[in-house]
């Protein structure tokens, strides 16, 4: 576990939003597991750090929460994307792709030259 990179600063919110978009309403534990799975177990995620991030998104109105029943009948709090969260996700994804494209160009300069 020790040598896996931590979630990059600032990308956690994007991952949470994308996860909620793909999976629909989900509780905190589920989101954490999903992020870990999606990363192909390459990322080290401290599950606890997720909760302040969720709270922040909720305070900003990107997601909303509601108590409900989990798949194995446990009381859990479910988060879902709001309309403004969906917009935020689109914007963030676009920004991210642009950013990675730019960085990519630096890393493979041969084609252009």
């Amino acid at each position, binding site marked *: 576990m020790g040598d896996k990179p931590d979630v990059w600063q600032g990308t956690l919110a994007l991952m949470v939003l994308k996860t909620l978009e793909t999976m629909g309403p989900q509780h905190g534990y589920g989101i954490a597991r999903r992020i870990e799975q999606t990363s192909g177990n390459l990322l080290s995620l401290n*599950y*606890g750090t997720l909760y*302040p991030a969720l709270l922040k998104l909720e305070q900003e109105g990107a997601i909303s929460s509601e108590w409900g029943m989990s798949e194995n009948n446990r009381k859990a709090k479910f988060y879902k994307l709001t309309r403004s969260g969906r917009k935020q996700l689109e*914007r963030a994804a676009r920004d991210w792709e642009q950013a990675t494209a730019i960085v990519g160009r630096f890393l493979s300069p041969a084609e252009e030259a």
Partner: protein
Amino acid sequence: MQSHLISFPASLRALWLRLRAAIDPGRANRDFSAELQSHLDMHIEDNVRSGMTLKEARRQALIQLGGFEQTQQAWRERNTLPMLETLCKDIQFGLRTMARNPAFTAVAILTLAIGIGVTATVFSWIDTVLLRPLGGVTDPQHLLTLEAVTANGAYIPNSYPDYRDFRDNLKLLDGIAVTHPAIFSIGKDDHAERAWGELVSGNYFAVLGVSPQLGRVFSPQEYSDKPGAFPIAVISDRYWRSHYNANPEIVGKTIRVNQHELTVVGIAPPAFHGSIPAEAFDLWVPYMEQPTLNGVDEWMLRDRGDRNMLGIARLRAGVTMQQAQAELAALAARMAIADADMDQGMSAILLPLWKSPHGPQGLLAGPLRILMGVCILVLLVVCANVANLLLARATVREKEFSTRLALGAGRGRLTRQVLTETLLLTASGAALGIAITPWMSRALQALMPPGQLSLSLDTPINLHVLAFAAGIGLLTTIAAGVFPAMQAGRTDLNTRLNEGGRSGLAGRGRHRLRSALVASEVALALVALVCAGLFAQGFAETSRIDPGFDPNHVLLSQFSLATNGYSLEQRKLFSRRLKAKLESVSGVTNVAYADGVPLGFEPSWWEDLQIDGYVPASGENMKTFRNVVSPGYLGLMHIPLLDGRDFNEQDDENSQPVMIVNQTFVQRFLGGGSVIGRRVHGWGQWFRIVGVAKDSKYHYPNESPVPYFYVPFRQIYRADMNLAFYVRTKLEPMTVLAALRSAVHEIDPSVTVFNPIPLKDYIGASLYPQKLAATLLTILGGLAVLLAAVGLYSVMAYAVAQRTQEIGVRMALGARPRDVLNLVVGQGLTLTGWGLAAGAVLAFGVARSVAAIEFTDSAMGSGAKLMGSPASNPAIYAGAALLLCAVGALAAYLPARRAASIDPMRALRTE
């Protein structure tokens, strides 16, 4: 990246939610605990399903979570605003602590309220009188006072011809206007009402940048210098509302002012009260109406010697005051040569508005400065007191602090806690202090001299004052709270816990600190007392000065006959007839009238003299103060004639002009020998000296002898002069008021008697600044002593309470109550002694600098000292020191007696 995710409203929304959660964090916290618990349960269940033991499953889940508590903490920090939350907790805790110690809280808050309230009151006056620029004008910071300067450096008003020269020649000013404050009577004949207004140059509103709220102000065509051409007026918002019910139709109508019709062209904006700070005027009329309204001869408008206009200049944008000043000085120098007959040696100067020597500023600037100083003194005493109280309490709370430190509270956290508590105290004190400010402000106003100025000092609490009080409160918090806070932070954990709170023996450093605070309180109280004593003495000395005339049993009343449309001849006739009527009233011994009143508020006038046989030194100021008096004036005032004769009815318009001079005049200009019959030139004619009067006081009770002369009313009285009527009686002066009124009514029912006042009261005004300083300093000095006594007592009482055990041991070992008494009182007196020694040094320095402060009134500003006597009067120092010793001894004695009555066994059993 992150920043793109948050749009601005979203972050605001987040802030708002966090703020809300900070105030009530309870429910959300419980909610999150449940969420976290369900997270763990699900994780553990998954782990068990993947084959772990329950114990291992729980361990792994917690590891992956990064700890239950830690997660909760991280979440909580995001949910609320941590800073704010601790602040809220501190405040809640502080409020509880305050409520638990009501006596402490009450004393501290009251002390602070007094200190802050007094300071805020004085500041609100300073703000109104000195700092606040004129209301309702454009860019007040560019407005300056323009004063003429005499050869000997006194600031005096301008003449209208001076104004025209300034106006037409100065390029660096964006206009210059002049104004002449005046009383008008508005309305018809016998029910005319008096109002204060200003006779102004036509460009007055343009220079001040005042736009009317209704109608118009004076237009450029009305800026001209043509006498009587523009019978118009602008009235104040206040007058409009009180007299015309805010009816807009008044604009364009005429009103009757001084028996002449003036058309109201506009209403000034509500914020505009005229061009003298803190004074409220209700009417503005072009100065060129003077001949019509007040019967002033037109040639007087062209007389350079007729200096009755206050100048206001507007600085051109981008020009410094120094540049404008240089241009003005150069022009004034040219004028002094061109008009050498009138203006020789004169110059002119630009001053910030608040430095104007006229009006309330000139009068109050000195006393207010001193008051501010004293307030700061009182505030320091208050700080020392509160710091002492807090320190004493910090000792009581040592156990609490030690425990909290032991449980892991940071020292910074404890320090912040103590500061928050102090802030709570000062905030309450400041709120209370501000609440009593308007009340104290009115009390201060009651000390103003009666009827002389139309002040608009209904000082509402404004932002300046609030900001000031808040600043003072903050400073007090820091000053009073910082020591206790430092002490809290420094609490030495081991010593405290080991001693089990037996703190009386340990806190040596703290003990020294408290002793220093008490000593400094005593020192400050001594300074306040000594200053109060010196001012009171100065006031008493000045009041005892023989003015050289007898103001007792004289009724003074002033007439503005001009406002009744009287011509000059009619005025003179009126005076003579009134005098004749009154002389036959029983109980009346003398009747006289004159232009000026000595030792009053009104400006004193002078004439430029040439004296036959006296050659002035180059640049010598020959402007000599004078009074225009009726026959019998000197006799009425009990001013002895040393030589020659008084004026009589034969000294009339057609006879040889005559003059009576005073002793100093003789010594300075006429040398030895008989002076009767010598010739003096003034007002364009030669006078013959017919008498020599004894010196008296003319402007200030403590002025040094000045040359002075009298000329006969019938020969010299002019339309722009005042008419002060004097009646001397055998009884109380006010008893002849009825007779005066009926005599006036018989002559002309439309003339009313204005401002009848005993001369003694009237000249009391000349003592006003000293009286103000002495009265308020005595009050504040008393306050400082009271506060110091409270401080001394509370500290001694506390120290004794701390030493209960020790004293018990001493008594068990054979100490007698008297020994205990001696011990405690001795310590109290030692502290007082140190304070007195420091205070004496400080008081001497302060008194010396205060003694240098002068004041001026609207008379010619020969700077008068506020403090009569030199700063070193040993009796006052000794008296103040003795008083404080007594206070110190008493403050120590009361707790000492309690200590001496302790039952040793019970004392030992305490704790």
